[in-house]
């Protein structure tokens, strides 16, 4: 069973093991730590009952200071045997909510390989992202990416949380 919690530096070990076969991208330690040191509220891990990290989302705020502020999903990964359980959706929702709550983000964006049909369908059908444009040769191996975007304001602004938790 899964617990979603904020990512920590020591999770980097588990996050990269999670990437063993899931992603061709396996970022340098610097990049993970940079995210955690700058926007610790935005990155989350999914931990199984043995405390093993089985998925994660690494997210950040765009740094060009343009208005409106928008967040960006850097990397999302769920181990193969833990797919089709809604973990990616939970991780994404948590990150998006934090972007809105903590940084007042209005949009969230991401890139996805045009060949990654499963991920594209998750973003478009389950998480309601739209294609903003296509970025040619975005990935190091020359593959194009869809740049996808989602409006966060409509999602959370009317939501009234019961604070008596």
């Amino acid at each position, binding site marked *: *069973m899964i617990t979603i919690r904020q990512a920590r*530096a020591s999770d980097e070990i588990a996050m990269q093991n999670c990437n*063993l076969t899931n992603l061709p991208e396996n970022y340098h330690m610097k990049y993970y730590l940079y995210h955690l040191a700058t926007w610790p509220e935005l990155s989350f891990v999914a931990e199984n009952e043995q405390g093993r990290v089985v998925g994660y989302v690494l997210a950040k705020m765009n740094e060009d200071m343009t208005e409106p502020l928008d967040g960006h999903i850097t990397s999302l990964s769920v181990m193969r045997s833990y797919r*089709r359980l809604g973990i990616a959706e939970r991780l994404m929702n948590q990150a998006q909510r934090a972007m809105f709550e903590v940084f007042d983000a209005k949009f969230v964006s991401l890139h996805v390989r045009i060949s990654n049909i499963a991920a594209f369908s998750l973003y478009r059908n389950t998480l309601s992202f739209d294609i903003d444009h296509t970025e040619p040769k975005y990935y190091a191996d020359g593959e194009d990416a869809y740049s996808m975007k989602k409006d966060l304001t409509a999602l959370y602004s009317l939501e009234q949380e019961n604070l008596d938790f």
Partner: protein
Amino acid sequence: MEQRQLRPVYDALDNEDVKQALKECNKIIRKHPNHLSAQALKAYALARTGASNEVLEIGESILKVPRSVANPHVRQALVRAYKSIRRPAEEIAVYNAALKHLPDDESIHSALFLTTASNEMYAEQHHAAVALNKAFKRQRYTWWIIVSLLLQTQLGKGSDNTQLQLSLAQRMAEKALQDHQIKNTEHLRILLLILEAQNNHEAMLKALSPDSPLAQQIANDPDLVTQRISLFVKTRAFKEAMSSASQTLEIRDNWADYKHYVEAVTEEIGQLADDSDAHQLLRNVCGSIEKWSQVRGRARGARLALVELSAKLHCSGYGDRLGSIVSSLGDQIWKYVDTFQNKAICYSDIMQYFVDHVCGSSATQDPSTTISVAFIDFHDNQLSQRIQHARENADNSEDCAQAWVNMEKIRYLLQTLRGDNNPELWTKDVDLFLEFGLDPKKAKLKQAACSDMVLLACQRLIQAAFLAYPKEQQQSHGLLSRSLFIILPILEEGIRLNGENFLLKLYAIRLYLYLSCYSRARALYDTLNIKNIQNDTLGHFIVGQGLALGCYIPDLELSYAGVSFYDRAHFTIPHELESAYKNGTYSNIPDFLEFRNNLKHSFQREITHRCALRSETISQGCSKDVVETLKAADTQSIEPTDSMLASLHDNRDVKVMGLLTPLGITEWNLEILTRPSPLPTENWIRLYSLLPQIMHYIAAADVDMVEAKQRQLLNAVEEAGESLSAYDKTVAHGLHHIASVYICLSQKGDSVDEKIDSLVKIIETNIPEEQTFDQKAAVLDKLPLATIRALAAATEVFTYAVTAKHAASSNRLPGSNSFGFALTQLRKRSLRCVSALRAWANKPARAAICESWIDTEQPMLLSNVSKYMQTKHKQAVDVVVKGCVDSWLKSAKGIVAHWEHYATPRRSVEEHEVIEDTWGDLNKKRLLR
């Protein structure tokens, strides 16, 4: 003006051309001997070459010049130089010197703070923060003081003022909270850490209460919500814990919250004297869980919570009292399996509950001690009602296939818990798994389930092989080797059908290494694309194995990749630590420090470093130059002190192999069974730290130290016992005898010939007779498990022996000639044997495999599997034959080349051209300087 003069230096440094940078600096210094910026940049350029002493000398002379570091160019270059050679005290001295002249410069104060913070100098960090806050009075600096106080108490050297410092930090943080200076949960988390350090749970609950100014952020932060519930449980406020958990479970599905909820419910029931109250409470709880299970996507968590609740109630002895409301753990487990059997994750979710039920929840370490046979029979009975149905329907859909996989995993677990040691029971039905898992059409449609089935088949067969041919017999006959060889084509075919399955690759790597096939194992390892931190966690699968199998250069490359990762980490983490202070993201700081510490004192780091040192020494062959290199080497830094060994942190991932059984049952732990050699321990590190040290003292002709280190070596080997492999023991004994010979030569002892004979005997014992390779079957009995490793160990010892001989000759020790003569004779005899191995691997090996392992009529445990694979998947069998033969040949060539190139730097004959470029790179990376 200064900028213009320095431009060529900066350009050269930007281009990583240190030589040019030094040239430009010297040019400026020749014209302007007092040019401090050029001197500081020269220090920086020298730092990049590792010339620490020169850097310190230049730095000292610059600091003597009044106001020198008031110049930002000088200051920055000097600080960077000290940073490069890891001298934080000198860095701090630069900033303190600068502050004398520029006391109001906030950036220098700030840099001083960050230097102390990133070098774990907690007391100095606190002083720097106080000075900053006093001078500039910013809110950020108040928090720097608070964090410094916390770190000083948690990580600093023992202080008498811990409570005082924590109280002060608490007061400052609470005041900030009252003044509404706490704007986000980052600050709040620091306050919570301070309170936790004082076990002040009540105050933590207050800080997390709905009255907090940060209530909204807390409510949306899953960690803080969970922390609040756990605090209620810790303070035995079970009603509040239940209420809080219940509210959060209405909107979230976090397993940690379910666990706390169930714990609180169980504890609360224990406090209720009246059964009807307990029944009512339990009915309400079950009703809530049932309600949550109806929400889309939440059924799994809620249903598992019922299993957890049942487990807890039965464990606490309330099972009989409340059995009418929550059914028994066994029934709950099977209800869960029935509902979620088509999910890949079902087995992982439920495995621990099977173990708890059969063995009792306290038996996690060694479940075999408290097994309940009645419960196993119960589960066997439940399983038998379902497994046949699952098998029959597996072809229907991916979900049905997954259900079968889960049932088979449960069968595997129950067999383990029962302690089935009949190999036949483990191979039963494997043919069905193979028919299903290796069917290309099915593999296309149901890839995950098919790969799982292939893996399951291999896990069963490996288990059966190790049960049939126990450890004590493994070295003496080839049946285990043959069995593992038969399993390999299954893994190869599975990998061909699903190249992304890392588990199949990990098992294949392990089996190939077990059979002494380094090259094929390495090729598979390379496809895993292991990099960055994975060198630390997964490097243990292969680092050092090349050395043990005569593949020195590939092993050295891997070791360098590992070493360079740790070096990068050393600079990366402090940089991000500084960012955390600058960004005010304080919650990560203790975690960053712990993470850095775990990497800095990583077990695998020390192992990789020792392997690199050995590979470097061996790869230089038996040349005389190596004596000079060893003489100049700094071996003090690898002194294996007790405190160093005690501080090591083990990041090696030994759970990555997808085990189906609890780690505690070691006889059924495939990760342990398939290790080609024992996992290195502290004793291994001690041994391979002493090795370069002894060789260094031999090269430096320091006989007293050789004697001292030899004694340490003996103690280390004795203490290590069976934790060392046969290879390590050979190296240790060989080194001990080399030291004895050298001491005897130095002291002009009478028994030198005797000692040389003993050394030669140790090496010769590990070299097989030349005639061995005439008998095809006999070679295969021993080669995969012993011969190549023994030969490689003999080669390593021989290399050190020749180096010691060179050292003795260069010190003009009498008797060094007879030492050299003995080694030359040994070399002649050994070369014939290792050449015979090469010749055997080059041709007869393939035929030997076919005759003894494949086409043999001799019935054995896995004969049927072997026949099946030959008939249906001949190509995979061929891949394994080729993989084994090629790998043995490469090992043989590596070893032969070493003995052939007796007096010249060793290069693998076969890889000579390929490695030409690599060799150049490797030379740049050398650790032995």
